[in-house]
């Protein structure tokens, strides 16, 4: 039986095309997926991301626990509400999941993990929490709405409970404020400014309707995928998984090597890989001509070596096809992608493709 978020009825009433996503019935688009994409780049759009898993962690040793569990270092979080993007690795340095962790106070943190990896994440988090005496509470009573776009914060602030509106307005990027069970983070997955609002499921439909009345466009998972790809943001299960390390996935920047005496799960394997030199690197690709790059297409270098596209799509902002790919370390700027038996020229570019409404790569 597929699960539904507290906003399912809103999606149905809006005529959304519903698809199964990791066991959840989610809206893939309401009308035009391309219009939804542009709404976020140019104005404000909202996404129901209530299928994501919110987990609260509590205990006297919770910081020490997270410093061991996560490849990025929560020791860097010193202000209440500050957030950190990180990978959670296995002993081999493979990525179990990517997540956002919020520092609430010295004995409380909140993490948000992917819906598709919920079961294994909870098992892994729980197994290690026991050792540190950390309490793990899955918050399946909460919903989450992401409001994204250049006008997102302005439109959303007026829809928030008055007690949190001022704090939300003043939030710095990658930090959060809370009042009661309403939690507002200035974070997102689109390359635009905005909020991710976590709140009790029962209160979510009223907020959704208020945001809609304030001119925020409902957007489906389809637009969410093209937006994150343009922003050069990885998707777990496509761009990285347990068989790939952050070093081969363009996520080396999320590993906190310092302090050198911090032992975290996967550190030894990553250090070995760093010393040996990873055989692959992660890159953005721009298709020179017509067509659409897709996951699992083969990338062929000038020397005849092969790589693979991990995510590909048509970019509504660029009106060209773009991709993220894992390619041999020696790959030059020009290479080819095989699409249905034909080889088409592509150019390696450094993501993001688009950020804050601006094209960030050279299209010529």
């Amino acid at each position, binding site marked *: 039986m597929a699960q539904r978020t507290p906003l399912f009825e809103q999606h149905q009433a809006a005529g959304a*095309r519903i698809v199964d996503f990791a066991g959840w019935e989610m809206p*893939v*688009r309401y009308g*035009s*997926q*391309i219009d939804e994409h542009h709404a976020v780049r140019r104005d404000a759009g909202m996404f129901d991301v209530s299928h994501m898993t919110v987990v609260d962690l509590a205990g006297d040793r919770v910081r020490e626990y997270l410093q061991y569990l996560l490849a990025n270092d929560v020791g860097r979080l010193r202000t209440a509400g500050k957030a950190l993007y990180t990978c959670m690795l296995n002993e081999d340095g493979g990525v179990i999941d990517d997540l956002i962790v919020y520092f609430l106070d010295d004995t409380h943190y909140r993490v948000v993990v992917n819906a598709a990896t919920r079961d294994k994440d909870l098992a892994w988090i729980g197994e290690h929490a026991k050792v540190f005496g950390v309490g793990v509470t899955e918050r399946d009573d909460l919903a989450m709405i992401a409001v994204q776009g250049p006008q997102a914060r302005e439109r959303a602030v007026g829809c928030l409970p008055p007690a949190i509106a001022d704090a939300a307005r003043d939030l710095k990027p990658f930090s959060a404020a809370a009042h009661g069970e309403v939690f507002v983070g200035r974070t997102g997955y689109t390359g635009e400014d905005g909020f991710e609002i976590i709140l009790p499921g029962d209160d979510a439909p009223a907020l959704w309707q208020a945001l809609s009345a304030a001119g925020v466009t409902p957007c489906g998972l*389809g637009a969410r*995928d*093209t937006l994150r790809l343009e922003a050069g943001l990885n998707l777990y299960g496509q761009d990285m998984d347990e068989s790939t390390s952050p070093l081969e996935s363009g996520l080396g920047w999320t590993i906190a090597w310092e302090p050198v005496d911090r032992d975290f799960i996967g550190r030894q394997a990553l250090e070995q890989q760093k010393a040996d030199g990873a055989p692959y690197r992660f890159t953005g690709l721009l298709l020179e001509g*017509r*067509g*659409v790059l*897709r996951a699992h297409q083969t990338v062929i270098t000038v020397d005849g070596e092969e790589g693979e596209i991990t995510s590909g*799509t*048509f970019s*509504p902002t660029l009106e060209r*096809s773009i991709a993220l790919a894992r390619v041999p370390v020696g790959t030059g700027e020009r290479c080819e992608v095989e699409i*249905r038996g034909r080889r088409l020229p592509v150019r390696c570019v450094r993501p993001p493709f688009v950020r804050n409404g601006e094209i960030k790569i050279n299209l010529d």
Partner: protein
Amino acid sequence: MSDIPGDLRYTKSHEWVRQDDDDRVTVGITDHAQGALGELVYVELPEVGMELSAGDACAVVESVKAASDVYAPLEGVVVEVNDALADRPELVNEQPYDDGWIMRLEQVDEDELAGLLDADTYLETLEDE
């Protein structure tokens, strides 16, 4: 509800066929198919002169989300393709039965054409989906 013109023939894989002449037909994808795919951003057309058998994958329509094959509804030779789709793939969304056509086939067999689904039967297959 999607549009299913009564004067066309259909396949279960959502192509439509219009008889233009004794042995010549136009082929496209149905309104239901374009609606399910969403906005098309690329169409890969067959080569003129290709000899097709019924069921051959002969074109590809790509939406933002995914690529889907278009199958030859019946045997024939490709005599014309809709080159306008190279610049304007969205014509398939806007006018699936008119300017959004995909290819024209000749040397088709009238009995094979008559054996394709009529509009009512195609509608029933949609209701079963």
